[in-house]
């Protein structure tokens, strides 16, 4: 069934493109330490707000254009014509741990000279935006997946139980979801963060944010799952299993919930962007991921300074582009999945 689904999905151009893009993004996040030329905290105070370095072909090598700081008071750099330093491939550099486990020190590309390579420019303390973007992707993208996994689990369990058991379980669960859905999301998010944060070390904030976002997100899923279970409960095959004397738990977990999976897959895919945006919003407001870790929202938050716009440091806005791309890709993938899962839901014109 899964293989079928995948085949149908990949036959649609939107599905193919978005799936490829997402694979690429997650791959980059996974292999960030290897793909990036340095580590996200490495700074260079001589090279703050450096523009993206141009790549030139020189003497048979792909080279990095060299720049000179011409005015520190405006952070303006000028390319030094004819001066470039070759990129060295798969060379040793700063040591890292891939997936947090495998130690390594090979980087896809580095430069040998003290001159840095800034594919996407540098930030306020001369750190490589490209490197921070890759490392930040790890946090921003995984928050979506972990969050969705948590909410799907919560939503499925609570919604399924409410729908199948009915009675006071149902009432209790549904009033709780209504309460959660009635409170404006962003404010609840901020309130929870404020209530839980005061003494959290910064490493734990990542987990905290996932928990907060999931605690707010399961309500919608739970309500739909409950509705589905309510209607499925009256279907002949459930009645049949009842008559066969199967136990309620078996019926719930073997027959009812698996039938909601197709909905869940689509809903989960479509709700991943919500988590990515939620993390971005929290970090943007200074309540999420903290320095020196990096996340897309945090990077955007640091770029909200008016001088960034006035001095045209556009490369600091690339995390925004990354967020937009990811969100669009997930939405397209979700649409394509929905079409693949249930052709009857297909939108007109597709």
């Amino acid at each position: 069934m899964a293989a079928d689904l995948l085949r149908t999905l990949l036959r649609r151009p939107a599905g193919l493109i978005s799936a490829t893009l997402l694979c690429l993004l997650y791959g980059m996040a996974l292999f960030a330490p290897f793909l990036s030329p340095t580590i996200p905290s490495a700074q260079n105070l001589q090279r703050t707000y450096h523009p993206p370095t141009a790549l030139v072909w020189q003497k048979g090598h792909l080279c990095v254009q060299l720049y000179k700081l011409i005015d520190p008071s405006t952070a303006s750099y000028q390319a030094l014509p004819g001066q470039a330093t070759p990129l060295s491939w798969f060379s040793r550099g700063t040591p890292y741990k891939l997936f947090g486990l495998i130690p390594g020190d090979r980087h896809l590309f580095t430069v040998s000279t003290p001159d840095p390579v800034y594919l996407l420019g540098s930030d306020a303390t001369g750190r490589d935006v490209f490197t921070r973007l890759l490392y930040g992707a790890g946090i921003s993208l995984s928050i979506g997946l972990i969050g969705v996994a948590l909410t799907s689990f919560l939503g499925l369990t609570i919604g399924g139980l409410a729908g199948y058991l009915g009675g006071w379980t149902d009432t209790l669960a549904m009033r709780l979801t209504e309460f959660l859905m009635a409170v404006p999301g962003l404010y609840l998010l901020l309130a929870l963060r404020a209530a839980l944060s005061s003494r959290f070390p910064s490493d734990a904030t990542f987990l905290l944010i996932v928990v907060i976002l999931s605690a707010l997100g399961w309500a919608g899923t739970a309500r739909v799952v409950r509705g589905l279970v309510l209607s499925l409960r009256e279907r002949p095959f459930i009645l049949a299993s009842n008559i066969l004397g199967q136990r309620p738990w078996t019926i719930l977990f073997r027959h009812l919930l698996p039938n909601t999976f197709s909905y869940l897959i689509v809903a989960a895919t479509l709700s991943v962007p919500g988590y990515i945006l939620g993390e971005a919003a929290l970090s943007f407001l200074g309540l999420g991921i903290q320095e020196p870790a990096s996340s897309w929202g945090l990077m955007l938050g640091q770029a909200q300074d008016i001088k960034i716009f006035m001095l045209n440091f556009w490369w600091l806005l690339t995390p925004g582009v990354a967020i937009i791309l990811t969100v669009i890709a997930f939405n397209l993938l979700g649409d394509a999945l929905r079409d693949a899962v249930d052709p009857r839901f297909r939108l007109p014109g597709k």
Partner: protein
Amino acid sequence: MPGCVPLLLCLIGLVPIACTPKNKETRMDHPLPAGIDTARTEPGRRGGVFIDSTPGEPSTFNPLVSEDATSSGFIGLFLDSLVRNNAVTQEVEPGLATRWDIAPDNKTFTFHLRPGVLWSDGHPFSADDVVFTFQAIYDSRYPNRAAFDLSVDGKKFTIEKIDDLTVRLTTPEIYAPFLETVGGVGLLPKHELESAFRDGSLLKAWNVSVAQKEPHRLLATGAFRLRSYQPAERIVFEANPHYWRADAQGVRLPYVDYLVTKLVKDANASTLAFATGQTDAEGLSPDNVAWIDRYASRYGFSVFNRGPSPNTGFIWFNQNPGHDSSGKPFVPPHKLAWFTDRRFRQAISHGIDRDGLVRGVLFGRGQPLWGPETPANKKWYNPNVTQYPYNPARSRALLAEAGFTIGSDQKLRDRAGNVVEFTLNTNQENQLRANMATAFKENMRDLGITVNLSFLDFGTLVGKIQDSYDYEAGMLGLTGGGDPAGGISVFSSKGRLHQWYPNQKTPATPWEARIDQLMSDQLHTLDYPTRKKYFDEVQKIMSDETPYIYLVTANAYVGLKDRWKNIRIPPLGSLVWNLDELWTPLLTP
């Protein structure tokens, strides 16, 4: 993208500014007082509206209640004092008193008031107002900040009226900053506020609601009086028709008719309002100067470098040996041993690339800082303090001397084998400070020291520093400048702002005892060179012992429209020192 910026600016520029009062009024000309003060600047022409903006809102117009800079700034516009502290020269000048005599005991000051001065409602100003003001300040029903400033060791000054134009103030001990402190006390009108003083409601007088409904009840002796206040919109001051200063040609100051302050949401909005030509003056942070300069010719303004700002930035370690109510020490004992070791602190100081911070974070607009005063405080700054230039080799040598070793894993360990690691707390609101914290972390990594950063909101951070003491290191700033007496709570070991170990019963170290002695000595003499000598030594000890590891000080900048003449920009304090002398040949349309 480059095309977007001017478009954005144009859009903002289209928003109408409805600040100029519509009906042009002629200014009343009352006869000048007998004791007129004549300005020594070039005579100008009357008229014009001076517009500036401020983030935030005044919380009161009552000097007894005001505790924030915004409110105090507005109060200073309409209430004058016996003497004026000239922010440009840092000298004391005559204000509502034309001269004063100091008795040989250096404790008795006789002030001779300016004759013929009237309040903005035409009522004469006299010694009764001065006595009333001090009565109000010292009244226990009205707790206020000035009461602390105007006392020595908890003892009040005594005030007596000699005649209508003479008052005598006596301090219980010799009190060095007496004139500067008196210069900060805005005098209150007895005839207006006495009834409120009697019935106990003085702290409710002159609040923001009175300012909105009856602005003219806020009587002025200053250059301006309040005309209207619309919260979240603007505050309009108009020229005080009874002001006591005039120019060489006998024209009463101020020249400008109106002073309009737009109340904006935040510092970004304030900066943007100036950069788009909507306001006449704005204090600019060093990182914004570069782009604002580009609009200078379009909107006809110039950016002035005021030189180093009085703001210091520093890192310090918690040296508090105490423990909380459950017996847990504030700082783990092995870390306390590092923090109280001078060599450790000096090594950290040598390991900080301050030039890099200036160049990278401040865009080259600042300078390294080595002591508690910045060069902005011309009168008290000691340039000969110990400096700690960036020198990781020296840091390592100092750490080795103190018994620290670097292992093969490039981590620094103390004698007992503890890895050197600490958490630096700072407030998250200040982006420049956050950048410095990340830069510091990297500098320390080069020494094998692991620094964890913790960004807290300001309130939480202050709670840690002043109440719970459960932190290892902090990074904050203080605004210096002014008289050394203002720094007593920082330097004295008993002080609340003695952040590395506040509220000590007895000085923990000999050098802290020495600072206590010097700070007390300088307070009890009026002789400037002696005081300077004492305070120089305080600055030297602070740099030698480095309880605060000073970082950098940014330059301060002021942007001002070119149409204003007679401008004098002080190195610290308000943007323009002589608002009453400003004039423009180009009147606002």
